């Protein structure tokens, strides 16, 4: 495994866990390295952004995405990288804002969103997102109207949630190929509008 940041406590904990997992015969060093190499080579928020942009321009795709996230991901060539989880897409609408958290750990669709930001794994975000999401969103700079309903999704089981943000005014007149660049990681988690 990478041997940098060895002085960081969490790195020491990860190393000890790896040693225990390997000693127990549950995995090998090479297998763990292969997982990480594959993850960093393929996991990116560009993937989720492409799905959202397609949903903005193709109502049929949007419908299929909301009905079966894995099948919709497969349409864009992402079948393999979402095969280990059930993908559930939830769409923002006028008057409804979705937001994703994992209160028990830090689950989210890594292969479509890239490695999670450190704040997503923080105790503060995990505990406050379910309790006072409006205040948390305001701290992210997203002030929602009082009448906008907030739906928080706690992804602590087998499903991984992807937020489909509403199509922004800035998308008007842009060619389809330019739309994914408008979709931010925060937009896909639901901590930002796009």
């Amino acid at each position, binding site marked *: 495994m990478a041997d940098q940041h060895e002085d960081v406590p969490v790195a020491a904990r990860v190393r000890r866990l790896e040693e225990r997992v390997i000693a127990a015969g549950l995995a090998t060093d090479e297998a763990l390295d292969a997982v990480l190499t594959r993850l960093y080579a393929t996991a990116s928020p560009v993937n989720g952004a492409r799905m959202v942009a397609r949903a903005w321009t193709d109502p049929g795709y949007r419908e299929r995405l909301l009905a079966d996230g894995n099948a919709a991901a497969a349409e864009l060539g992402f079948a393999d990288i979402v095969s280990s989880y*059930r993908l*559930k897409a939830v769409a923002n609408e006028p008057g409804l804002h979705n937001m994703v958290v994992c*209160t*028990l750990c830090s689950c989210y669709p890594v292969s479509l969103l890239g490695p999670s930001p450190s704040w997503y794994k923080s105790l503060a975000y995990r505990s406050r997102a*379910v*309790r*006072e*999401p*409006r205040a948390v969103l305001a701290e992210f700079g997203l002030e929602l109207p009082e009448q906008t*309903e*907030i*739906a*928080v*999704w*706690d*992804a*602590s*089981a*087998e*499903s991984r949630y992807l937020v489909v943000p509403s199509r922004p005014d800035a998308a008007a007149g842009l060619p389809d190929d330019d739309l994914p660049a408008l979709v931010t990681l925060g937009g896909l988690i639901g901590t930002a509008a796009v």
Partner: protein
Amino acid sequence: MRFPPGTQVRTRLLDPDHHTRLPRYVRGQVGEIVEAEGVCPLPDDRARGLAPPREEMVYAVRFPAAALWGTGTHTVTVDLWESYLEEAG
């Protein structure tokens, strides 16, 4: 599936001494079934190395914030295994 969408369910007041995916903040709470997600192995069994683990339907269950926290207008939807739930009567 035991609980169709729209069913009011109450989560059990479990306090096991082993791993569970029933978050403490929704225990003993009434919520509504949003959808059935599919059958998955029960993490309580997997974490204890019980083989084979029980396989159960997982449901998305929506709770109103005001019930969970006494305040708030949002909802929180949590994925829960069937044995965590009973029909709210």
